[in-house]
């Protein structure tokens, strides 16, 4: 295949002597969805937080488009067009949707003041596309439902022309209808050539949405498989037993 959009090689990080991620390598191509699977505490979120800049790795290298990238904080990650939808959503509950969407990247007027009206207008535009039922533009996001909050977090990641999108359990708090919307969105973004890392617990969803799946257990990579080649039982045994059915090398 072509040069990977993202290549993470031998990533390691320890917290207080525990190896949360131990020499894990994964990669991601443009227009590809790679699922990350594993038990709670397997190290999926931690691995991905090294890509989004939330954690600084102890070891390993990250290549973006084949070039070595230095990501030590979230600002670095954003400069590589890496956007993240965190499991916790990472919203400031006391601010409205527009302020959250543009947090850290506010639109300003010619005098350098924050341009709330312009940000609200942009927010209304993107929300019309993502979640047409969304109306609460002037309420703090604490007043929103789980699905509405999720759409704010998704809008934030999508709005800024992400090329690499990290989704950490994007449907965990959603009902069936909203989950369907997220699935459609993933298909649409994939068609636009965006690479997506999708962390999920739902094996079915990963088989449906992802091109490949990397499974982690106890901080180590069990293996990476093409989803077309495996059944959900294969994936489950990788997750639970840590056994790699195809011996695709890590």
């Amino acid at each position: 295949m072509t040069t990977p959009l993202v290549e993470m090689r031998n990533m390691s990080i320890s917290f207080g002597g525990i190896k949360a991620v131990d020499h894990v390598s994964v990669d991601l191509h443009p227009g590809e969805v790679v699922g990350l699977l594993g038990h709670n505490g397997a190290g999926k979120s931690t691995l991905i937080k090294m890509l989004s800049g939330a954690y600084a790795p102890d070891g390993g290298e990250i290549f973006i488009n084949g070039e070595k990238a230095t990501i030590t904080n979230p600002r670095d990650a954003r400069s590589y067009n890496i956007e993240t939808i965190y499991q916790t959503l990472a919203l400031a509950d006391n601010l409205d949707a527009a302020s959250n969407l543009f947090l850290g990247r506010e639109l300003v007027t010619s005098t350098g003041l924050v341009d709330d009206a312009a940000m609200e207008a942009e927010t209304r535009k993107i929300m019309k596309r993502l979640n047409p039922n969304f109306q609460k533009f002037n309420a703090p996001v604490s007043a929103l439902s789980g699905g509405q909050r999720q759409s704010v977090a998704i809008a934030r990641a999508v709005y800024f022309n992400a090329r690499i999108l990290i989704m950490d359990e994007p449907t965990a708090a959603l009902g069936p209808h909203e989950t369907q919307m997220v699935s459609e969105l993933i298909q649409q973004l994939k068609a636009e050539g965006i690479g997506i890392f999708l962390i999920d617990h739902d094996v079915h969803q990963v088989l449906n949405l992802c091109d490949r799946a990397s499974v982690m257990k106890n901080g180590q990579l069990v293996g990476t498989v093409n989803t077309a080649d495996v059944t959900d039982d294969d994936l489950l045994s990788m997750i639970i037993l840590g056994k790699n059915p195809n011996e695709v090398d890590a």
Partner: protein
Amino acid sequence: MTDTTSQPIPPQRKSFFQQLELDTRLLGMVGAFIILCLGFDFVTEGRFLTPRNIFNLTIQTVSVAIMACGMVFIIVTRHIDLSVGALLATCSAIMAMVQTAFLPDVLGLDLGSPLIAPIAIVVGIAAGTAIGAFHGWLVGYLTIPAFIVTLGGLLIWRNVGWFLTRGQTIGPLDSNFQVFGGTNGTLGPTVSWVLGAIFAAAAVFGIWNARRAKSAHGFPVKPVWAEMVLSVVSAGAILGFIATLNAYQVPQGRLRRIFEARGETLPEGYSIGYGLPVSVLLLIVIAVLMTVVARRTRFGRYIFATGGNPDAAELSGINTRMLTVKIFALMGALCAISAIVASARLTNHTNDIGTLDELRVIAAAVIGGTALAGGVGTIHGAILGALIMQSLQSGMAMVGVDAPYQNIVVGAVLVLAVLIDIQYRKRTGDA
């Protein structure tokens, strides 16, 4: 009005106040303040709401109110600053020593030189900012809790101030410096009216400009009559305040001395109002600037975002450590400005200046609706909080309540205000 067809707004019947879209919490505070003033006025048989007492109330409030503006940002980001009173004392001591000892003795400036006051002020504000930034560095980068850093600061700066002056009262302060003290620096009726007219016009312009910006993007706006009511009320309040300050006449004895100093005699029947004190103008300017910072700058946005969810702010690429340094530095600068006002009002620096101000400032911010849990607070609320505290204190003094009882009442009011606030937030479902 504008295009509402694309977004059908549910036809709810809104009450008068809902249509005004005012902060009901603020309305409640203003209501409480008015009831308080009317109550004291009744008990003191009309002595509370005189131009003279209102004038005194405003100049007594300025020092605490200026610091309360900074305390809002501190508390919004989930920190606290217990050192503001002590920092005020150190800044006051530094400025007093600069103008009475350092500049005349070391640089050889004559006492009364026009350079003395500006240099002292610049040095004082620089010192306050530096000390505040140092606090912020300890909190932000070394992650020592702000409570501990500023508790230490309370002990340290109170006594650094003592050492700088060797415990002496330093004064009299430079006469240009004293302009910031209140009665020694007022603008007179004419200038006050002009400023009042400018403020009123600016307030009205602000209301209509915000409306224009909203409708330009096709957002729903308030009915025109609501904007009219707001405009009239704000302009009326500003001009009424100026009229009250202008109505307080300079005492005849004081006028006679002013005229004698100029080598003239006081004309028969001459009288003039004080007008807007420079210190109050300073507070107004700071309040407007701080409100703009809070609402319309990235810095302000990041303060509130960090207060609402520090992790989210960090993940959004906000440098929350540097933000902490900036917030504490700003607090330090405001302490220095308060020190100018407080020492100028006393016409000299005393050792106990600003004692217990940290508690008044925190109480003003909290009564004004700043939530200790972070993320919520307004500048105008904190100033209103300071005004309520000061009105309580001086009203009780006028009624003849003993000092210990005054403090008991103020303490009880603080707790009660927070209780009411908690109930209010539960009721309305606010954060």
